[in-house]
């Protein structure tokens, strides 16, 4: 049985008593919280008769008053003059662009009654093709962040005072700037890939001679930029074509999760990961890394090494491919074998191979460039005709700026869209040095660590309030348009620069569009000619390039302007290779090494105050709200003395409670204390720590108001452990780790939904699949047949004593491809946003009270030391013969004639029988009033701090609640909720189809998870319609299976079994092998 092969944690692997007990007890609470009321408990405690009568009387009176109060008078206030394009109750959609640092994702913003409430991918963009990531999905909540600054500010002692008008602010700043003398003005920003902004910056800098623009990325790709300069003469990053690659080797590049342009790469990658019976082909993906990354967990073959060995691995690969380097010695036989295999695979698909590397070491990247030359990637899978503009920061410039600032030689420091005090390794010193600049201005939208050190603050708009453009790849421009009036007194960063630049007309920087027709001469657009703000500048700028109003309007409406450019190679210069390999050979390693990484949820920490992202379980570790020191079981044994593999008592003590032992990591005198999380698949000498956590104001008591209720207290800041190696920042280091005596609780969701040893995953290797496609699902199929009485063959109708109900019109169904699901979790956030899913806070996640309707189960399988990983999105399966429906005493959950398992909140009385009876554990119970929607006001307050975290109150602020989807009921305490298949979207699509009298229109419906998915792993539609996508997918009988089908629950969600392109025996093949061996 496959059941033993897939495990979520060590307890499950070992089937330990404590694990079994905890899995059995889905609701760990006692029925009544009597222990909390009196220490004696229910039976020993005395309840005096008078008390009893008092409570009885009070509750009767309270219920009477609450029920019989007069109905409130409600008002309906129409517009004074109704805007033409707004119909109350009907959503409008506007194309725009999500911007975070250099990241740019073309999106469509759903706006309802003037409020943006949901982000969807823009399918017109050929970069993202409608895909999004978790951060883009969550960014709509940042618009309503309570920590956003509401007006311009000026430093006043230790605090700030409001500057009442923009004019006053402008005159203050221009006077101050005039007074800096000959010292330079420095504009410090994240990567700017907006052509129009770049021109405004150029004009501004032209006004202040000697001034400069420093681009600084929180997580740098500077090493790559320098390596490309050395090899190709261009300080740029090429664009990658994973869709052209048949063999992909990634050297610790998390290209599906956080590396460079993960949405684009996921989309490309998935095109070669879809297996159909017509085209049973797969790309081959090798991953060499130190920690277990999201990309690594999707790889066909994965090998681990120390972080310091990345260069060695690259060199060994280069040598194996025939490069002119001496092959370094590699001690680990498995790793050596992996390199050989990877090299062979790369050569066998020469011209359709690609090697990417996540290291920020210039030398490693030079070697990787040499490898890509040998395998013919340059010009095929790597395109130098189009550069990737998402990261431009050169690290030495930032280090120079920090030194200049410290020396007091900077006249004015203008900071936009970056937070160096938090993200720079020497951030604290940088913060103190800011005061040495004569003028310091921050354009950041919140009072973050850097802004609170600046003298002047003029918050810029949120991207949903802004005009703008981005050119993430040259020739591919994505536009932003405001979808709401600015909520606060904020002003576009560009407008401020225009105001402070007097009439400095200069030649417009040409976006890399087809310029032959657009403009024969470079248009000169001066700020004054274009009007005195960014909006009019933007319009005249793009009108000049795109031509008249019509094409401009179309560009804004589509959100994109693109130009196809054929892939081209760049000339490779290998002069730098020798020095690079020499330096790499001399690199030092240590017994314990640290690797810093980003999570798909928080990324670089810019959106740390977003409770949706904080509560999103990390796809690998399943931990929410914190970062931690990830180590392998072997390292845990030596480090904290817990032998999780062999000592069951220690293992249980570690795994079942949230409290984890804390270790101290020391690097060059800098220390950080973090709880230990033991995870298989890491290199035994590696500690992995996520960046992006530990946001805190310089003055701790301000943290809640300034960095926010969600960011405060979530994890520790690991940026100080970044080091500078003379050319670029390094995210790996030799460290010492020691155990401390304290513990720290981690809120991990991994064992909250256990399938309790029932098989839920089917998997095989490509070669066995090709040999015998039927074998993959042989086990569930034969089991299904064996359940039927003799002479019967229809499992659906004859396998049960329950009657079969017809679905006369539509029958909704979903299909999920386990092959292309990368676990990126964009769908989880999309679902949260679409369905008003509550945030419960860390305290409640520890109690398994998280409310996510959609979770991504992560299973390990195979070799315990280096396991394979399978992700399985799990939501309500909408069983046609649903176990939950039979046990509801009030029929609050029942079935629709369209196959939906319906949940009616106002009928639910909270018995939780349904959740107990659900084999998929997808029903979530509202243990507390998470939404503040109970009829008694302020009844959350008594629980503040003990049961309900500050983040819950952040979500219930009147401002934050503007993000709620008005078509979905906000649930109150005491009811069960679960995935509804986005029924509001289904009903809306049916209504549209009925209005247009066209049944085929329901094919357009997309659930929120499906829309968000960057790999098209989720399909949804009408199963009764033979032309629908989901019907077509289900025809593949060799891979299509239903989870726990043998229970005859008849789910409406089907899965496509996973196939890995590997020589190893995986899934069913592996089991067979093991059974034959004994």
């Amino acid at each position, binding site marked *: 049985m496959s059941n033993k092969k897939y495990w979520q944690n060590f307890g499950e692997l070992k089937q330990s008593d404590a694990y079994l007990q905890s899995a059995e007890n889905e609701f760990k609470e006692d029925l009544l919280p009597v222990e909390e009321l009196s220490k004696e408990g229910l039976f020993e405690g005395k309840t005096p008769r008078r008390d009893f009568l008092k409570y009885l009387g009070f509750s009767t009176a309270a219920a009477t008053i609450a*029920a*019989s109060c007069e*109905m409130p*008078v*409600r*008002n*309906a*206030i*129409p*517009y*004074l*003059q*109704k805007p033409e394009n707004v*119909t*109350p*109750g*009907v959503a409008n959609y506007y194309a725009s662009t999500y911007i975070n640092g250099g990241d740019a994702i073309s999106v469509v913003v759903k706006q309802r009654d003037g409020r943006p409430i949901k982000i969807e991918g823009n399918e017109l963009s050929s970069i993202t093709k409608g895909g999004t990531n978790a951060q883009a999905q969550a960014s709509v909540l940042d618009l309503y962040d309570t920590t956003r600054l509401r007006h311009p500010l000026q430093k006043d002692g230790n605090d700030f005072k409001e500057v009442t008008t923009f004019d006053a602010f402008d005159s203050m700043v221009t006077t101050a700037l005039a007074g800096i003398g000959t010292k330079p003005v420095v504009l410090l920003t994240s990567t700017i890939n907006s052509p129009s902004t770049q021109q405004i910056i150029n004009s501004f800098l032209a006004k202040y001679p000697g001034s400069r623009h420093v681009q600084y990325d929180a997580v740098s790709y500077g090493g790559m930029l320098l390596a490309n300069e050395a090899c190709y003469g261009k300080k740029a990053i090429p664009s990658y074509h994973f869709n052209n690659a048949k063999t992909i080797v990634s050297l610790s590049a998390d290209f599906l999760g956080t590396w460079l342009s993960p949405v684009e790469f996921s989309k490309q990658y998935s095109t070669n990961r879809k297996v159909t019976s017509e085209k049973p082909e797969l790309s081959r993906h090798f991953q060499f890394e130190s920690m277990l990354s999201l990309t690594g967990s999707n790889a066909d073959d994965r090998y681990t090494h120390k972080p310091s060995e990345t260069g060695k691995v690259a060199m060994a690969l280069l040598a194996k491919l025939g490069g002119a380097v001496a092959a370094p010695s590699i001690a680990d036989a498995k790793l050596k074998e992996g390199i050989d295999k990877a090299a062979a695979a790369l050569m066998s698909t020469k011209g359709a191979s690609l090697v990417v590397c996540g290291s920020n070491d210039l030398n490693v990247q030079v070697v990787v460039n040499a490898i890509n030359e040998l395998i013919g990637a340059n010009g095929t899978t790597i395109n130098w005709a189009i550069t990737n503009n998402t990261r431009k920061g050169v690290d030495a410039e930032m280090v120079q700026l920090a030194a200049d600032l410290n020396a007091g030689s900077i006249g004015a420091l203008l900071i936009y869209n970056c937070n160096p005090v938090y993200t720079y390794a020497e951030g604290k010193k940088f913060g103190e040095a800011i005061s040495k600049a004569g003028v310091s201005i921050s354009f950041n939208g919140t009072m973050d660590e850097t802004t609170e050190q600046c003298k002047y603050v003029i918050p810029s708009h949120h991207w949903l309030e802004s005009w703008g453009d981005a050119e993430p790849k040259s020739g591919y421009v994505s536009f932003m348009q405001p979808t709401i009036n600015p909520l606060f007194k904020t002003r576009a960063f560009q407008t401020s620069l225009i105001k402070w630049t007097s009439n400095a007309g200069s030649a417009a920087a040409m976006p890399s569009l087809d310029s032959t027709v657009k403009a024969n001469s470079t248009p000169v657009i001066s700020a004054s000619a274009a009007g005195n703000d960014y909006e009019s500048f933007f319009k005249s700028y793009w009108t000049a390039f795109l031509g008249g109003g019509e094409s401009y309007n179309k560009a804004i409406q589509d959100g994109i302007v693109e130009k196809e450019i054929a892939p081209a190679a760049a000339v490779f210069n290998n002069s730098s290779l020798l020095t690079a390999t020499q330096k790499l050979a001399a690199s030092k390693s240590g017994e314990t090494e640290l690797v810093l990484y980003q999570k798909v949820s928080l990324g670089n920490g810019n959106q740390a105050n977003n409770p949706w992202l904080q509560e999103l379980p990390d796809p690998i570790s399943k931990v929410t709200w914190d970062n931690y020191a990830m180590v392998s079981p072997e390292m845990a044994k030596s480090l904290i003395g817990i032998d999780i593999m062999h000592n069951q008592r220690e293992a249980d003590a570690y795994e079942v409670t949230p409290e984890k032992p804390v270790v101290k990591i020391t690097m060059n005198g800098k220390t950080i204390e973090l709880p230990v999380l033991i995870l298989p698949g890491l290199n035994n000498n590696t500690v992995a720590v996520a960046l992006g956590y530990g946001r805190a104001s310089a003055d701790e008591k301000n943290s809640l108001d300034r960095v926010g209720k969600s960011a405060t207290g979530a994890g520790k800041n690991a940026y100080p452990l970044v080091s500078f190696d003379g050319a670029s920042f390094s995210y790996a280091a030799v460290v010492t780790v020691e155990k401390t005596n304290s513990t720290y609780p981690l809120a991990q969701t991994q064992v909250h939904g256990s399938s309790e040893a029932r098989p839920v995953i089917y998997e095989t290797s490509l070669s066995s699949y090709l040999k015998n496609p039927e074998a993959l699902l042989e086990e569930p199929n034969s089991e299904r047949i064996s359940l039927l009485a003799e002479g019967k063959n229809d499992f659906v109708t004859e396998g049960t004593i329950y009657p079969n109900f*017809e679905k*006369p*019109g*539509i029958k909704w169904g979903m299909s999920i491809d386990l092959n292309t699901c990368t676990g990126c979790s964009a769908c989880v956030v999309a679902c949260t946003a679409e369905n008003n899913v509550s945030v419960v806070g860390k305290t409640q996640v520890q109690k398994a009270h998280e409310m996510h309707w959609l979770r991504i189960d992560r299973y390990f399988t195979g070799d315990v030391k280096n396991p394979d990983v399978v992700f399985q999105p799990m939501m309500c399966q909408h069983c046609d013969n649903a176990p939950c429906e039979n046990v509801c005493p009030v029929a609050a959950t*029942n079935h*629709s*004639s*369209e196959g*939906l398992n*319906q*949940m*009616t*909140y*106002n*009928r639910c009385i909270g018995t939780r029988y349904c959740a107990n009876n659900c084999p998929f554990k997808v029903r979530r119970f509202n243990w507390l009033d998470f939404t503040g929607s109970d009829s008694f006001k302020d009844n959350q307050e008594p629980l503040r701090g003990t049961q309900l975290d500050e983040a819950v109150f952040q979500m219930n602020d009147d401002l934050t609640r503007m993000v709620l989807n008005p*078509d*979905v*009921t*906000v649930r109150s305490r005491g009811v069960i909720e679960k995935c*509804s298949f986005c*029924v*509001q979207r289904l*009903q809306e699509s*049916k*209504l549209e*189809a*009925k*209005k247009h*009298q*066209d*049944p085929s229109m329901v094919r357009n419906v997309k659930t929120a998870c499906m829309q968000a998915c960057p790999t098209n792993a989720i399909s949804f539609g009408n199963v*009764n*319609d033979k032309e629908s996508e989901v019907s077509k997918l289900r025809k593949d009988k060799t891979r299509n299976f239903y989870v726990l089908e043998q229970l005859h629950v008849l789910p409406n969600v089907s899965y496509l079994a996973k196939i890995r392109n590997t020589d190893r025996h995986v899934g069913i093949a592996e089991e067979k092998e093991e059974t034959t061996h004994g």
Partner: protein
Amino acid sequence: MSRYRINITKVLLSLLFLFILSSNNSVFAADGEALFKANCSNCHKPDADYTGPALKGWSTREPSKDWVYKWIANPSQMIATDEYAKGLFAKYKPTVMTAFPNLKKEEIDAILKYVDDYTPPAATAASSTGGTESEGDNSMLYGILTLILALIAMILLQVNSNLRKLSDDKEGVHRGEPVPFYRNKTYIMAGILVMATVGGYYVINGAIGLGRQQKYQPVQPIYYSHKVHAGTNQISCLYCHGSAQDSKHAGIPSVNVCMNCHMAIKEYKGDPIVKEDGKVLDATAEIQKLYSYAGWNPETKQYNPDNNNDGVPDGARPISWVKIHNLPDHVYFNHSQHIKVGKQQCQTCHGNIQEMPEVYQFSNLSMGWCINCHRESKVDFYNKESGEGNKFYSIYEKFHQDIKDHKLDSVTVEKIGGTECQKCHY
């Protein structure tokens, strides 16, 4: 309620009769009526001045038919050039007639023919107002009869027991003193049962009714009479509540929609409106209230200047109407689904709104009431042979087969899932 229904039927029947009578010579006129109602009736009446002049008798006033064509195609140009048009404008300013460049000459001819042939339907309407007695009275009668019968039965029982006692006494059988009826356990028990039943009925009904607001008729900031607008003046519901066919909300018109007509209509000249408290309403004063909300100066016939730069005339502010129809938050209701797909009349749920001076909640808006209608109403089911009906329903293969096999004669909303929980709750 039933009386209204009968009235409507009668009016419809008589209209149908009139239509049949005149149909042999009025193919154009019939089209003309539709065209008139669609394009003109918001500002014009055939026989009376309104926002614009009465149209009947146009040929006696207007210079020529060609002039009419030109005028309809582009009124503002005519005002600039034509003398007669200038005169018209002077009379009705500042309202300028909307241009209808898309109306064809034949269509204009049809409209003109319709207004010429127009006769007020007053006579037929009047004849139908007699009405019949309400059926509700019968139950009262039954109740009284039951009570009387029960009383007689009780008296007879009492008489019977007295007589038996007398006869027993006569025969020498001793039975003791008779128990008075108020101490008779049978009577007491029966009384308790009756009281519990009746009391329980009212308590439960009362509890069910908690939070329901049938007949709710709040005082509104402006005494707005639907009777005057939708009844007397026949303004189409969708002119003001246009989003009812696009959105879940029917929408309350913004103030500028009111001002489209009320820029010209300054005072109320119709029949006196008697308020609920019996007083006669000063309807012109209510129009003045509207002007105050809109920031309109009726003296100068202009909007107030926007001195405070907030984008609207000074003093203009939205009207805070009191919401009458309130559904609980967990109910999803979509007007367009009912109006556009279900082809329901507004009156089905809102009652005869065109006869309500101030609107009250006509239906109880309870779930039972919704469900009932969903059980009874038939959808516009697609007929595969004739191609009639909503093509969306072509996917319901089973029902098509059942209809063919005569197992089913029509498809109700319930059949296609109209009474399932997540039709309205999600």
